[in-house]
């Protein structure tokens, strides 16, 4: 009955799933139709909740057996108590948020670790399009400049600087392009960045 099986999990979600140890407590922010949580519940006995702004997606999560709570991330994570999760996930959403710094701090208030992924603005194709006089449009940035939800672009170094400013340490970083891991010149060749972060000390 479930449309969420191994074969259909998007490569970027699969990478996140690989970072989550079995039986963790997970909070998935902007969980969409619950694909990641459904997968984690099924394969890693993970417990937790999704947060999602769209009620249609809440129904999809319910159908997939995922506990999803409707909420607006811009309002913070008041529904959740301090240190009540092992991992808090924010997948390809931080660049579209008004309160970028706040959500990062909130994630590490309610969770021991945070996983943040975002399209890397420093990817060479983006730079190339800018050189040609246009705002980038690509697989990971599929919007025109005038109707994009994305308002806070960053590159790897920018995100790492924001973490450093807030006493947040990077535990792990992976950069991918079209589902493949990029190790050489990641800020130039990687279109999607994955970070696992935690409070220092």
């Amino acid at each position, binding site marked *: *009955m479930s449309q969420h099986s191994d074969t259909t999990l998007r490569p970027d979600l699969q990478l996140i799933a690989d970072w989550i140890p079995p039986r963790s407590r997970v909070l998935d922010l902007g969980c969409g139709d619950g694909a990641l949580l459904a997968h984690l519940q099924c394969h890693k006995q993970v*417990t937790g*909740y999704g947060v999602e702004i769209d*009620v*249609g997606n*809440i*129904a*999809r*999560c*319910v*159908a997939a*057996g*995922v*506990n*999803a*709570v*409707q*909420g607006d991330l811009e309002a913070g994570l*008041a*529904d*959740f*108590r301090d240190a*009540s999760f092992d991992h808090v996930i924010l997948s390809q959403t931080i660049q579209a948020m008004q309160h970028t710094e706040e959500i990062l701090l909130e994630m590490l208030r309610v969770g021991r670790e945070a996983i943040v992924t975002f399209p890397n603005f420093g990817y060479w194709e983006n730079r190339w399009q800018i050189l040609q006089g246009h705002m980038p449009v690509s697989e990971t940035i599929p919007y025109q400049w005038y109707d994009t939800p994305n308002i806070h672009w960053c590159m790897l170094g920018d995100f790492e600087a924001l973490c450093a400013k807030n006493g947040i340490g990077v535990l792990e970083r992976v950069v991918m392009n079209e589902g493949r891991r990029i190790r050489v010149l990641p800020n130039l060749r990687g279109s999607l960045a994955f970070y696992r972060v935690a409070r220092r000390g």
Partner: protein
Amino acid sequence: MSTTESSVGIVSAQQALFDVPLDLACGKTLTSYQLTFETYGELNAARSNAILICHALSGHHHAAGRYQPDDKSPGWWDSMIGPGKPIDTRRFFVVALNNLGGCHGSTGPSSINPETGRPWGSAFPVVTVPDWVTAQARLADRLGIDRWAAVIGGSLGGMQALQWSINYPERVANAIVVAAAPKLSAQNIAFNDVARQAILTDPDFHGGDFYQNGAIPRRGLRLARMLGHITYLSDDGMGEKFGRMLRSGEYKFGYDVEFEIESYLRYQGDKFSDYFDANTYLLMTKALDYFDPAKDHGGDLVAALKQATANFLVASFTSDWRFSPLRSRELVQALIAADKRVAYGEIESTHGHDAFLMTDQPYVDLMRAYLDRVAKEVAA
């Protein structure tokens, strides 16, 4: 579409008599009582597909279908219950009852007190949500239902679903709590008291013993219902439906009905006062006011919910200001803090508190998705 398609069709009510005394929260005891209920669908061999429908303030056991083919309107939740509907009677055995203290066949203030041979009237004890849940559990025993696949209710009905999950954790697989709150706010209690005062101060009320005087406190009931009705709708919804429309197109400079909204409210109030019992209205609003499952746990709702083992669905409506989404969110926060499995949907609607009786598509979709899951859980 014909009227019987997706309907449970023609239904009839049943009665269950209970002779085992029921100790109530108020300290009094009902030595015997009757509950009136209806059932739709078939109980499966494993007795695992039963759903309890809990009614709200002025509700009763007639939740779906019709008594006669030409009945003007079907049961109060016919939009949600029936073959192919979210509470699908092809899959579930649905039980809906009239609570104790009601005026639709269950023992209540208008019933005959066996000790006096006269209507109970003012002597009928105050009943609470936990009392109702106990009475409902006895009905479940009678029907051979050990565990409900789901207990479902809106408003005061949602409170009963919540209480079930706390008082009988092993007997509730899923609790669906719609447009409810973990306890009333001061504003809500205030509204209830204005409604009660309208009834209590009606000269025809006779201290609750109006039955033997051949009187009915119609004016009080009417006012109580008009006030209630205003609070169940939203300003936007009322504006859309009535605006400032005038019945005759011009001001009359008097106090008769001029605006359409006045006409509507008076009509609703009159209709209500024809069929509802004043003492029942007092009891039901008191049950609302007293509801506070956290009270037995030092005011800690999380502690109260710890013992629940059900899966929860909580839903609220954006334009509901009587039980606003914030109140549902309080419940969701407590459920999360108690580490319960919960899904929460905040439905965009202009229908105010009454939206739980309506068919806003996202609401129906959410209920359907959840109940599909319940059906899969209980499938043999």
